């Protein structure tokens, strides 16, 4: 164990950790923009700078590793001033199109500017670009829009794609001298939208649902993805009675905040107008819409007849690997206790 001092507090810690890790573990707040816990430090935004005794310049706390006896200050007037300057530079080039931006009220840049204060920046006239001057582009999937002018070049998307997803589609570069993101290998994209999920601003936004809503206008319901057996935890974002987006929870297994293309973008079927909404009974070559009573009475009558005439083993049932445990339990109980047969299976084998 080693001892470090952060803001006058002595802290015992294991060696090999970064200043940011130690600070967070001890409830000391340092603002960040590009940092993501499960990735290697990106070190692009410099907002997490701290003063360390023995260094002339402030050090990025996400990269700098603690050493024994280190004395660290996280919040000095000088640091605050430098952080404001960093934000000022970002704002100079960032359109203030918040009213029409998907990310408003969930935007990390908005939060940081609000937190650190921006009065002087406005007074100096340095908050520059009032509107979006470039239309969005789509790269390798139709599910994601990229608004280059909103990009703050934090490189979260680049690193997530490389480290978490393992595809390496995106690269950081410059356009007319301004740092931007480029699709260096669009053919490798698997449209999972992990880049979208980590974008702190409205540069990468979802292009699936035509309906959008602010955070306070939507409800998030935590449930489980309906596709493969990994069983990722998802949050259905609902507004006006429709799923408008799927997000997830970084804190819980099994997926700890990661989703694939089906989990994130495969929700439109829920609201499809092709959904069955009324019971149908065959009449010759076509079907007739009927009431639940008529449909269930008919099925009950037919099942009774068949059981009486041919015995219970002439009836079989398939339950489903896509229905809930409760649905399946009731189904097999019905086949066994009511019909009287063990002819119940599902497509586990297929």
């Amino acid at each position, binding site marked *: 164990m080693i001892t470090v001092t952060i803001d006058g507090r002595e802290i015992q810690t294991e060696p090999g950790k970064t200043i940011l890790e130690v600070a967070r573990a001890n409830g000391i707040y340092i603002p960040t923009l590009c940092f993501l816990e499960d990735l290697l430090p990106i070190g692009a935004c410099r907002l997490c700078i701290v003063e360390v005794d023995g260094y002339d310049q402030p050090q990025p706390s996400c990269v700098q590793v603690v050493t024994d006896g280190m004395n660290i200050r996280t919040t000095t007037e000088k640091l605050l001033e430098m952080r404001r300057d960093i934000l000022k530079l970002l704002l100079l080039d960032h359109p203030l199109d918040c009213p029409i931006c998907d990310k408003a009220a969930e935007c990390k840049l908005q939060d940081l500017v609000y937190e650190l204060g921006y009065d002087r920046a406005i007074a100096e006239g340095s908050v520059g670009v009032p509107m979006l001057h470039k239309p969005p582009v789509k790269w390798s999937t139709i599910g994601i829009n990229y608004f280059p002018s909103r990009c703050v070049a934090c490189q979260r998307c680049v690193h997530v794609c490389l480290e978490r997803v393992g595809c390496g589609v995106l690269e950081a570069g410059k356009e007319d001298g301004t740092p931007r993101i480029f699709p260096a290998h669009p053919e490798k994209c698997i449209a999972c939208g992990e880049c979208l999920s980590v974008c702190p601003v409205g540069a990468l936004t979802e292009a699936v649902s035509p309906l959008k809503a602010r955070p306070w206008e939507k409800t998030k319901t935590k449930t489980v993805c309906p596709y493969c057996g990994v*069983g990722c935890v998802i949050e259905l974002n609902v507004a006006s009675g429709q799923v408008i987006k799927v997000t997830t929870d970084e804190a819980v297994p099994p997926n700890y905040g990661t989703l694939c293309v089906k989990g994130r973008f495969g929700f439109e079927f829920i609201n499809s107008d092709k959904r069955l909404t009324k019971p149908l009974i065959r009449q010759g070559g076509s079907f007739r819409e009927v009431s639940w009573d008529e449909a269930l009475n008919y099925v009950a009558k037919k099942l009774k007849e068949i059981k009486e005439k041919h015995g219970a083993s002439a*009836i079989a049932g398939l339950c489903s690997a896509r229905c809930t445990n409760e649905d399946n339990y*009731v189904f097999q109980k019905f086949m066994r206790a009511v019909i009287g047969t063990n002819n119940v299976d599902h497509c586990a084998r297929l």
Partner: protein
Amino acid sequence: MGDIEDAEVILVVGSNTTENHPVFGMKVRKLARMKGTNLIIIDPRRIDLVDDAVLHLPLKAGTDIALFNAMLNVIIREELYDKKFVEENTEGFEELLKVVEKYTPELAEEITGVPKDDIISAARMYAKAERASIIYCMGVTQHAKGTDNVKSLSNLALVCGHIGKPGTGVNPLRGQNNVQGACDMGGLPVFYPGYQRVDVEEVKRKFEKLWNAKLSAEPGLTVVEMGHAAIEGKVKALYIMGENPVLTDPDLHHMEEALRKLDLLVVQDIFFTETCDFAHVVLPACAFSEKEGTFTNTERRVQRVRRALKPKGGTKDDWKIIAELSERLGYPMPYRDAEEIFEEIRKVTPQYAGITYRRIDRVGIQWPCPTEDHPGTPILHVGKIARGKGLLVPVEYRPPVEQPDREYPFVLVTGRNYYHYHTGTMTRKCKVLNYGAPEPILEIHPIDAHIIGVSDEDMVKVVGRRGSIELKAKLSERVKRGEVFSTFHFHEARVNVLTGSQELDPVAKIPELKVTAVRIEKVGKGE
């Protein structure tokens, strides 16, 4: 799935993990790249994970057992196995030895087409690792001898002692979100909930008391057997809840004939599926987003499903429809809600006994969880093997039933792709997913394509012994020469028209879905 991080070596067998279980695939890939975990891929195709693997054994489809036995042969001959573990925790080693003796790497090379040196390297790497994990999926089980394949894999894990510790084990990846749960709940012809056999008198009596009903001790029919029985006129009524056998089942023409013969076919689903075409009654059910309940994932984690939306139109919960029908047949099931059903599940299913909705509110619990103060069980067989001693069951290699010949020279392997899921009922209604994979394709090796005069994007006819389909060819070196690949997501090219159902695995009753002999004919030029 979390404990895979502790493995030094991961053997991926018959699982296209990055496409079929993408989020887990990302994790495996990340371990290989960032942590240096050694991946060994055993798969006929050059799947994406091969890029991150140290070794790829591209065996001929259906020759798995010869390969696993040869690995065992090397491990035993070179004395790389865990002698202490074998002695203390297994039985049947002598018998195993007798069988694997003859599977030399040379013989395996002949059968599987994998160079013997690669087989030897894979065996050494797996055996020498401190902790090594096996991941397998339908590429192992969907054969007429799938059970043998799994036994053979567990032989490997047992002789090396790679079981019951973090980062080890023989880990199946379940294909559908609640296939584990459907099995746990007794959605199987020989089991009540919790894998309690229907043909054990004591168990039967217990359930007769719990359910207050007279029960049958006779094991029921599996899905493929139901089809055969319907054609023979022995099954007259079929009730299908949320399945689409007209696309998923092998030898589709046979399945369609079976459905046509029924006096009553009830289909309960969220869409008018291909199977509904054959139905007498179609009942509209709620989608997952309109349901309360639980799903159980591939690592046996029981998780909460919650209602985010009101039921669409006149749809009802699946369980509620069954309960209302049950009442009409004189057996009321007056469940108030899903939680009340779950409480009954806990009572009759020992593995679920300690799980409550309240306990899994935030994070799911992995069964077995016998009591309410039990934390759940992330790893099975810790300390000792569940059945006492791990049984080593020697298995012999038998060639796949379907062999290519002059008339049908190619082997068709089937599976899924990344963008779609099963029969596409849900995914094909989502634009991002359709954009990613808009149409069915047949992957064929460029040299084979050249020989039969097929270019990229040409329409081809795939002709098998039971039927034929037409789709676009895609030239790709992901498949080996002599093998072609396609998916079963698309109703316009129903791959399962080609696959066979006559030969089933004797235990699991799984048909030979992964190996089908076909020929390819060009029908039109690509645009």
